[in-house]
């Protein structure tokens, strides 16, 4: 039994919001309410569920974008939820996040080389721009883009290309864990297939672990080793991919699977 890269134990993230702006009766929203899972090195775990189930909050909590209420998260045995921002900084290189919206997640004022180069300098992986540009060129080729695009700005690229740049920005740091939150949801199907293939190939080649957050069960089946189904802040079922898709145990998982519209080819279901 290998040691998990990431172990999440009974994670809770609650938010206190006011029911109305004036009559401040506070309400407690239990976005994540006792979630536990392990991700082994080189494995992909998907969190799947409908909007509001808390799947994105799990990803945001693990990257310190939201604050955990209780519970523990161990990265290589180290509890990083309790770390101060400065203590957490070295881990930021190792835990990287790919966001959903390729139009909002790249700084429009920066050239691609600045967007990809900045994290290299921040994490001390490069000393000079020559070094950085060499790395950026290699990375851009890996994600299927011409290295010359590093001199251009985000507005010159389509959604699919921007998502490739977003992936390059993450992979160039050689992280151990990538958290991808709806990374292909905003793309057209023909482009989504290209980006999914790319993500899967990069994952297999580099052996990075991935927490893949998505509402699309087809996409989840394609990329995962393990699947966790979330509903109302809790994981209702977790297991190997085949088990979840072919022998779902929980009623909610079955309902989700039954709800998906399928292309019927002839008499049989594809």
């Amino acid at each position: 039994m290998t040691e998990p890269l990431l172990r999440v134990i009974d994670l809770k993230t609650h938010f206190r919001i006011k029911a109305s702006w004036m009559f401040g009766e506070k309400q407690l929203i239990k976005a994540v309410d006792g979630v536990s899972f392990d991700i082994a090195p080189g494995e992909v775990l998907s969190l799947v569920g409908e909007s509001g189930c808390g799947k994105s909050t799990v990803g945001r909590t693990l990257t310190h974008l939201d604050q955990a209420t209780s519970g523990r998260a161990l990265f290589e045995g180290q509890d990083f939820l309790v770390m101060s921002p400065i203590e957490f900084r070295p881990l930021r290189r190792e835990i990287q996040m790919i966001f959903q919206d390729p139009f909002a997640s790249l700084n429009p004022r920066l050239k691609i080389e600045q967007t990809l180069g900045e994290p290299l300098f921040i994490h001390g992986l490069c000393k000079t721009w020559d070094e950085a540009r060499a790395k950026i060129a290699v990375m851009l080729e890996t994600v299927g883009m011409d290295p010359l695009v590093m001199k251009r700005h985000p507005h010159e690229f389509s959604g699919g290309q921007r998502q490739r740049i977003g992936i390059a920005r993450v992979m160039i740091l050689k992280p151990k864990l990538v958290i991808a939150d709806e990374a292909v949801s905003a793309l057209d199907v023909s482009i989504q297939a290209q980006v999914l293939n790319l993500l899967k190939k990069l994952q297999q080649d580099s052996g990075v672990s991935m927490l893949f957050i998505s509402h699309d069960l087809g996409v989840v089946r394609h990329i995962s080793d393990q699947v966790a189904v979330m509903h109302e802040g809790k994981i209702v079922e977790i297991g190997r991919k085949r088990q979840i898709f072919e022998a779902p145990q929980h009623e909610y998982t079955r309902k989700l699977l039954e709800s998906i519209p399928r292309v019927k080819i002839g008499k049989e279901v594809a």
Partner: protein
Amino acid sequence: MALLEVQDLEIAVRTKGKLLPVVQGVSFDVDDNETLGIVGESGCGKSLTALAIMGLLGGTTVRITGGNIRFDGMDLLTLSDGERRSIMGNRMAMIFQEPMTSLNPVYRIGDQIIENIRQHQKMTNAQARDRAVELLSLVRIPNPSERVDSFPHQMSGGQRQRVMIAMALSCDPKLLIADEPTTALDVTVQKEVLDLMADLQTRMGTAIVLISHDLGVISETCDKVAVMYRGRVVEAAATENLFTELAHPYTRGLLNSIPVVDSDVDWLEAIPGRVPTLEEELTGCAFHPRCALVTKLCATTVPQEIEYKPGHSVRCHFSGKVAP
């Protein structure tokens, strides 16, 4: 004669002094009790086609440059504004994609439904309100007599989309145009909304044009399908024939691009390249830069629509050579 007949529809967008064609030679028809699906990726012209039918392409930037649209025998493109207003929202209605933005946030949903009813039918406010409650219960909103006084922000996305459907159905339209009606919804809610639309169709015999990028949704709900790519219908057939005997490489590519939930594949067969932008001038078949079957002919000559099988038309020089 079919209820809705679209013939050789042409739409162009004016940018930087140039007229760029965005919909070219699109033809289809829909009959009572029938559902036509229009499928394609962003920028293929499917939504513009819907807006053209509803007469919502105003102004000088986007306009219809050719073809005609006949609804119930009337030529929709030559109607006066007044005549058009009496049909839209009444005998023809549309459901938009965004349930979050297509309801007015400052009016109660009941008032928004009542406004449409009283625009087209002689009813007192009280009668129209009763009708609104009835419609809300028809689309299965719980406690309709209370929810009629709710504001849009007090409802979930699925409920708002149902309110949109209720509003569209308020005058018993003969034709319903639904532009990505479930794209913003969760799968379980999507299923409910699609079931609801199918149920209403069997009860009222409405004709439906369903626009979607989701082949699964199209396959489960439509009688026939038109696949669009960059402004043209590249393949059209009855749903069961389209997916069984598909003849256009783009349709094949779309189908192969979808990761399915019922089986495992190692790699998706993605279509290479990307959807060309409007500004790019393309000669020949618009799909040729991404097509595996491409020849010189494809780059120079626009393929004409041919009848591949009875009731199954396709625009490709090599239809039938697509791998099954």
